[in-house]
């Protein structure tokens, strides 16, 4: 029977209260939301906090607000809620693509977007999605809050800009016109971590050329977006050849490792193939946006 080592438990009632509790209980306190990363780690003694601060009652973290120029998603928003949201699917179909293949429906009832980004697992899907969508992360500190780009937020595997005494409170997705986005993952079986995955977003100019683009890879050893691959698209008219060129550059930028999920060559092949597919689907969606 796997049970965590002993700890003390307290429920936060607000963001301010959570920050007070983090300060009071010091470096061995951990915040719990869905708990689907932290509790398994605690069972295995990979994490052994003295205090658990439960933020599940903090209603202010649990909002989804559509502003004219951005969608604001509270950190406590569950995967299942993102998948159920029509607004999310209309503005950012890449989020629905990814959420359909994150864990399984029961796990998605508990896991949260803030928890996923905070855990920063190298095979985690939403980090790539947030990279691709130029999301900004709101981090609350005792001194106030700051808003950081993904480039500053995500520092590498299991490491983010959110310090021990801070709390991720919101993720902001900028809304821009003529946008399309997509995500595709190859997994060994339902609910598994990615063998490899790719995401892309395209923002089209009125003349039908690509105004802006981002490409991101998951579980392929690349931190942050595939900048050079996206750069060849900008200012160009989309074509299969152009997408193939970008896909090859994305694969070249990847540095997958061989593990039980497959050899390097296979994963690099997936990087190219999945990038090509998501670019095509993103273009399709930019041309035929979902009806509001």
């Amino acid at each position, binding site marked *: *029977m*796997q*049970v*965590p*080592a*002993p*700890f*003390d*438990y307290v429920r936060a009632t607000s963001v301010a209260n959570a920050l007070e509790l983090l300060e009071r209980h010091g470096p061995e306190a951990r915040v*719990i939301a869905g*708990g*689907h990363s932290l*509790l*398994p780690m*605690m*069972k295995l003694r990979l994490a052994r906090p003295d205090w*658990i601060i*439960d933020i*599940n009652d903090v209603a202010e973290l649990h909002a989804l607000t559509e502003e004219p120029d951005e969608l604001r998603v509270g950190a406590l928003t569950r995967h*299942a809620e993102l998948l159920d949201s029509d607004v999310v699917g209309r503005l950012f179909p890449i989020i629905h693509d990814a959420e359909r293949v994150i*864990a*399984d*429906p*029961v*796990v998605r*009832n*508990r896991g949260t977007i803030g928890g996923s980004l905070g855990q920063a697992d190298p095979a985690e899907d939403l980090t790539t999605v947030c990279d691709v969508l130029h999301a900004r992360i709101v981090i609350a500190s005792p001194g106030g809050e700051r808003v950081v780009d993904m480039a500053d937020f995500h520092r590498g595997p299991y490491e983010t800009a959110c310090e021990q005494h801070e709390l991720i409170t919101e993720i902001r997705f900028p809304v821009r016109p003529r946008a399309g986005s997509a995500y595709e993952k190859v997994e060994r079986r*339902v*609910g598994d971590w990615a063998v490899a995955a790719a995401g892309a977003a395209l923002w089209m100019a009125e003349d039908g050329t690509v105004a802006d683009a981002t490409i991101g890879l998951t579980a392929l050893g690349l931190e942050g977006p595939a900048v050079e691959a996206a750069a060849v698209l900008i200012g160009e008219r989309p074509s299969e050849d152009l997408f193939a060129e970008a896909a090859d550059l994305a694969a070249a930028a990847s540095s997958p490792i061989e593990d039980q999920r497959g050899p390097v060559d296979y994963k690099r092949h997936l990087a190219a193939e999945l990038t090509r597919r998501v670019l095509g689907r993103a273009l399709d969606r930019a041309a035929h946006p979902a009806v509001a």
Partner: protein
Amino acid sequence: MQVTMTVNGTEVTRDVEPRILLVHYLRESLGLTGTHWGCDTSNCGTCVVLVDGEPVKSCTQLAAMTAGHEVTTVEGMADGATLDPVQQGFMEEHGLQCGFCTPGMMLTARALLDRNPDPAEDEIREAISGQICRCTGYATIVRSVQWAAAHPAAEGTTASEVPA
């Protein structure tokens, strides 16, 4: 710490350590052993219960986190002597073999039908995709859920007729 929650409609309070998982609270503190405990790693889904009507893997939630919430276990599915249509469906369509995954499967099916009373086969398969049947009896599980969808107000078998 004192943990109070509503389980199958009854408020219960037990004194447990904060580290106690919901599955063990149900099985050991309350004696509700219908909730099965399987892989311990959030993979197999045999420990699924409903928390506020949504399926949750009870091996990956602290009892303390569940305080103040409403939990439904397999013991709470029947209405007195009348089986839930999902339970009836599992009888009619042979939805169980060894029975180990059955409580979790039935609760997930109940939550699905509450949300979507007439699910397509692929929606049923998707709903139970986080749960493993070690007998690989998925075809009959899906048919059992379809039976329940087709008989929403089934004249349930009374509990006394259920073979022991």
